[in-house]
């Protein structure tokens, strides 16, 4: 018998009495909230391509701020994945189910979900075409397709073998995160050489590969096997993190934890049988043997976006097809009725759930303002954050903007570059509820 899910898509069903209690208290909370602007009446057709974190959050806000609009979400994936939790699954701290929800449970009332992929974007004809050939016309498009993990770009890589022969890769899926934990745990019992790193492309949560090296170090120490292991982090360029002050802090911590660092190393091939990874370096290809490796593949815009006119036509984001949007408004440079939010947006940094939380209200405000015939002053300053786990029980609350400035939410209270328990507690206890509230347009 299938497990009954509540309206959140997570956890067991709650009783009617509890719901009544909840709704009463929620009504009280609503009553004490500052009044919101009345919904804007419109007959606009809005397509939200992608029903991940960005798509659902955008649809929820649009449904609340517009009245009479036709909002259509298009996404073929039925489960909703809480990706910030993948690292915790891959560290053996949370079960696989922790990161799996149900997309449909977060679709706001009044919006429609088409459970198909988008095969084609036609911004000139103002329509998208689904995998089955169904054309969906729009007045506004919110591009929230996420990105594509390009495992095929690493010669010899086989996603089906994650979890075996020391091969880990946290990103591929909840199953892969769990299999990575099994491979890392086996390594932590034996010791040997572990390789970490990141691709040279833009990537989601650039802190995640760093965290995983920290977690592996911690688990080795807890099992008394740190002396039998060598950990090597392969940075794709000459830094560990794009924000210099954070990069330097991680360098110091890696030195303290005896994690070696190779700069300018990009994974290009892997021999899964012989356990040898080949990196491209300035000196040519370099082979490194391993007993455990966490593979982070190159990341690109999805094929349909890359095939469309929506991507950048020049500059660093052209090759991988990221959508050409204004970095402060998320509005497309050539198609003003198109906005891109989340991973697919061609903006510096910002491929995290925290970025989504700050991008979506800005993009939605500009879209609604266009409908209402007013000017929006909302601006996205590149804010993103990363609870950078440095061991089980401690993390650094790193928050920054486009200019690499640290922008702490709690200045003078939670120091961004200190390893703190409070940050870890937030990551474990508060982050997912905040994320879920964001999906519903409430946070």
């Amino acid at each position, binding site marked *: 018998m299938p497990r009954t899910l*509540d309206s*959140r898509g997570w*956890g067991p069903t*709650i*009783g009617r009495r*509890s*719901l009544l*209690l*909840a709704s009463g*208290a*929620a009504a009280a*909370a*609503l009553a*004490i*909230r*500052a009044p919101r602007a009345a919904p804007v009446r419109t007959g606009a057709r809005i397509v939200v391509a992608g029903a991940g974190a960005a798509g659902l959050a955008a649809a929820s806000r649009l449904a609340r701020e517009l009245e009479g609009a036709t909002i259509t979400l298009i996404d073929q994936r039925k489960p909703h994945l809480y990706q910030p939790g993948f690292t915790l699954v891959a560290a053996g*701290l949370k079960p696989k189910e922790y990161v799996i929800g149900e997309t449909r449970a977060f679709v706001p009332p009044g919006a429609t979900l088409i459970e198909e992929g988008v095969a084609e974007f036609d911004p000139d004809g103002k329509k998208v075409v689904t995998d089955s050939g169904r054309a969906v016309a729009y007045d506004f498009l919110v591009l929230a397709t996420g990105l594509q993990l390009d495992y095929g770009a690493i010669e010899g890589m086989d996603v089906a073998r994650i979890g075996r022969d020391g091969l880990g890769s946290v990103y591929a899926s909840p199953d892969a995160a769990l299999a990575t934990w099994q491979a890392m745990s086996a390594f932590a019992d034996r010791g040997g050489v572990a390789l970490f790193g990141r691709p040279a492309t833009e990537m989601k949560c650039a802190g995640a590969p760093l965290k995983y090296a920290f977690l592996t170090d911690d688990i080795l120490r807890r099992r008394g096997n740190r002396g039998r292991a060598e950990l090597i982090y392969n940075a794709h360029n000459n830094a560990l993190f794009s924000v210099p002050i954070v990069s330097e802090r991680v360098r110091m911590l890696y030195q303290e934890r005896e994690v070696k660092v190779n700069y300018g190393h990009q994974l290009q091939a892997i021999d899964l049988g012989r356990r040898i990874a080949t990196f491209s370096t300035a000196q040519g290809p370099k082979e490194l043997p391993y007993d455990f490796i966490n593979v982070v593949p190159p990341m690109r815009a999805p094929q349909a976006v890359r095939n469309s006119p929506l991507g950048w036509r020049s500059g660093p984001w052209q090759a991988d097809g990221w959508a050409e949007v204004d970095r402060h408004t998320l509005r497309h440079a050539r198609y003003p009725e198109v906005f891109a939010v989340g991973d697919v947006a061609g903006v510096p940094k910002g491929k995290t759930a925290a970025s989504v*939380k*700050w991008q979506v*209200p800005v993009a939605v405000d500009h879209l609604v303002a266009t409908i209402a015939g007013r000017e929006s002053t909302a601006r996205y300053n590149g804010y993103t954050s990363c609870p950078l786990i440095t*061991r*089980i*029980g*401690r993390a650094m609350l790193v928050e920054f903007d486009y200019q690499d400035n640290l922008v702490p*939410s709690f200045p003078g*209270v*939670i*120091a961004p570059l*200190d*390893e*703190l*328990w*409070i940050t*870890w*507690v937030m990551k*474990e*206890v*508060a982050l*997912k*509820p*905040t994320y*879920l*509230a964001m999906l*519903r347009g*409430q*946070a």
Partner: protein
Amino acid sequence: MKDLDLFVFVAVFQEMLGAFLWIGLGAVALVALLFVWLLLRERGMAAGRLVRSELVGLVGGVLAILVMQAVTHSGFSDIGGPIDWVLVALIWLAGFVIATLAAYVGFGLLALRRSAPVTGRPLQKPA
């Protein structure tokens, strides 16, 4: 944090605890109401009972910290800075206050039950 108003706070806690948020808040409200009711009924605080309740509260505070550590896979060795000690103190304080109030109410209700008459209203003699 952006838009950190009470509504967001409630929404996040609702996602975190589900129905338990309201059950928990309801239980705390009930204990607080019973506490006030006891104060009014007894026309003041019972000093001996308060001391006993505070002893329970001390344990309640420690339990609250241990529960938080168990839930977050962490321990005292993870405390890394002054704000962590503040958090520990706040968690302890919350556990202490709730456990003290609950114990005071519990002891008070037990005392009332003991002092209540065993039988009800005496039967009226037939005329």
